[in-house]
């Protein structure tokens, strides 16, 4: 095992998939010579050539629309959207086309593609380099939505996403690209299946459901409240759609208290779905209201540091929410 960063894990996954399957190619803005603005594709252009690591025009709908067409032809495109905030021009292609192709053709046509996009704030990116966009896509049957929280999962899940016969939205916590490090097996092929959530910290008192960057802070918060004698179970959802209801409900059965944490704003956010799942099927196990800690309902993350920090959720805010819920 070697310790690597998130972005290195993502790069390794693409490298290995490009090597494994010559149908796989990467298309996106600055992914070629530049190696991606976050360096996620660094060295791949040199290794696989401009035929397979393609600098697209500066047009997100082109990236996804051409990706859909290539997937229909039998290719396995990995489409990179430079920032999740810029995905909206491609929304029509994702929602009207990629997600519905298999259903609307009664199984004749599949769209095996991955759409990767760095998401999330806390990096001084302001309104348009900080957004969390997962809730738009977890509403869409036909898509799979994956958000890894650590290098091991990022690599294994991305490899599964490339091999999946369906369109997969793969959102990467950009703040964690270099901040989050973790062990990944060296010279050993592995994948992480799309679907199952993972209990990353066993606990008895409160179930904390989260994903992506917030998972990193959730583990820190769990350690902070452990000093107060609160034993938190942290569940990394990993795949948001289709969601692993079983793991969610089993955890609530054990702890009887549920806190959902995400960076995206509260209303209509992914936490609402988890809360509804627990209310609908886990109600009899609860001994406190389901709580959500989410970004505030303002349009996006502001630029100026104090305002950004006001918006962002951190370990301390999570710890406070845990303490409140524990005291209920």
């Amino acid at each position, binding site marked *: 095992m070697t310790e690597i960063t998130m972005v290195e894990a993502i790069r390794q996954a693409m490298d290995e998939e490009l090597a494994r399957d010559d149908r796989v190619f990467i298309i996106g803005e600055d992914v070629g010579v530049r190696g991606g603005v976050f360096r996620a594709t660094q060295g791949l252009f040199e290794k696989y050539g401009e035929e397979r690591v393609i600098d697209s025009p500066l047009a997100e709908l082109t990236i996804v629309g051409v990706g859909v067409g290539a997937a229909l032809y039998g290719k396995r495109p990995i489409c990179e959207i430079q920032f999740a905030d810029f995905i909206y021009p491609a929304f029509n292609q994702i929602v009207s086309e990629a997600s519905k192709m*298999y259903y609307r053709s009664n199984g004749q046509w599949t769209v095996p593609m991955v759409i990767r996009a760095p998401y999330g704030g806390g990096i001084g990116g302001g309104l348009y380099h900080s957004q969390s966009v997962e809730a738009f896509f977890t509403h869409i049957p036909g898509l799979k939505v994956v958000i890894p929280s650590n290098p091991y999962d990022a690599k294994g899940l991305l490899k599964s996403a490339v091999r999946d016969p369906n369109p997969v939205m793969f959102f990467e916590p950009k703040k964690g690209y270099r901040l989050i490090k973790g062990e990944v097996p060296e010279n050993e092929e592995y994948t992480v*299946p799309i679907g199952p959530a993972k209990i990353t910290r066993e606990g008895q008192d409160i179930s904390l459901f989260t994903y992506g960057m917030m998972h990193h802070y959730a583990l820190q918060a769990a350690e902070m409240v452990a000093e107060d004698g609160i034993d938190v179970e942290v569940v990394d959802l990993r795949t948001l759609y289709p969601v692993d209801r079983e793991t969610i409900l089993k955890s609530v059965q054990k702890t009887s208290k549920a806190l959902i944490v995400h960076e995206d704003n509260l209303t209509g956010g992914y936490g609402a779905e988890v809360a509804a799942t627990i209310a609908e099927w886990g109600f009899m196990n609860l001994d406190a209201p389901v709580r959500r800690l989410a970004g505030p309902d303002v349009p996006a993350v502001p630029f100026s540091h104090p305002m950004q920090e006001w918006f962002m959720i951190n370990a301390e805010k999570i710890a406070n929410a845990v303490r409140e819920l524990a005291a209920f």
Partner: protein
Amino acid sequence: MSLSTEKKKEMFWVMLLSRRLDERAWVLHRQGKIAFHISGIGQEAAQVGAVYAIEKGKDWLVPYYRDLAMMIGMGMTPKEFVMSLLGKAQEPTSGARQMPSHFSLRHANVVSHSAPVATQSPHASGIGFGIKMDGKDEVVLTTIGEGSTSQGEWYEAVNFAAIHELPVVFLVENNQYAISVPQEKQMAVKSAADKACGLGLRGIEVDGTQMFEVYDAVKEAVEIARKGEGPSVIEAKMYRLTPHSSDDDDRSYRTREEVEKHKKQDPLIVMKDQLIEQGLMTEEEYQKLEEKAKKVVDEAVEQANQSPYPKGDEAAAPVYAQEVNHD
């Protein structure tokens, strides 16, 4: 380019059959037997001319919803079309999930398309990109109405194909109206083909009521594409002789005189007269084709009527394709 007499007659037959089938759909709608029809009447000459310029089973077609004649040319049967009108389980485009005329025919490389216009255009470029990556000599023909060329999706698709010199032919079926909005409110250029010059590819105009002229123009573009010399935009100009769809009333936005004027240039009549004048078909042969078309359409309706509807709960699937082995 030379087409044999037999081939020309075959093409005329596809036009004629498609027209009679299309007209029957209107009748079925007015009888209350189907919920919806969107028509290609007036566009058959261009559609058949274009589709005969590609190689069936090898090349790719990414169509739009008025391309009934093109689909008949690609091998979709009249029965299959009527099944889609009726929402019958065995209709081949979508198992009756989509509205009629939202085509797809996997075995013929006809790609499924949707209703938000111009979404199909980037797919054509993506397929062309795949062809180029594999070094194949296949070609993609994709169609669109002139109104839909207002969409950014169309420009982006054409731009990408031009950058990478992809084997794609973008055929614009200019029927002069986008529902109620005439061409001059869609574009400042005279022809959608003029848009090509701003994107760096060939732009060709052709009379869309002349089947063999369209064939020649598309054939040339296909051959250029097949040689790896890049894409073309072709605008075939015609006139939509019917309302936009069975739910539209075109009297609210165009005069009867205008429609009547264009009916005199109905491509079906133009092509019939041309074949007879050139001695390729006799009036008697034409009458026989009409009888045959009526019979084929009657049988298609009868057989489609007898085929089963899907069960309601068939709508639950298929949402996700089968998992592949992740090892």
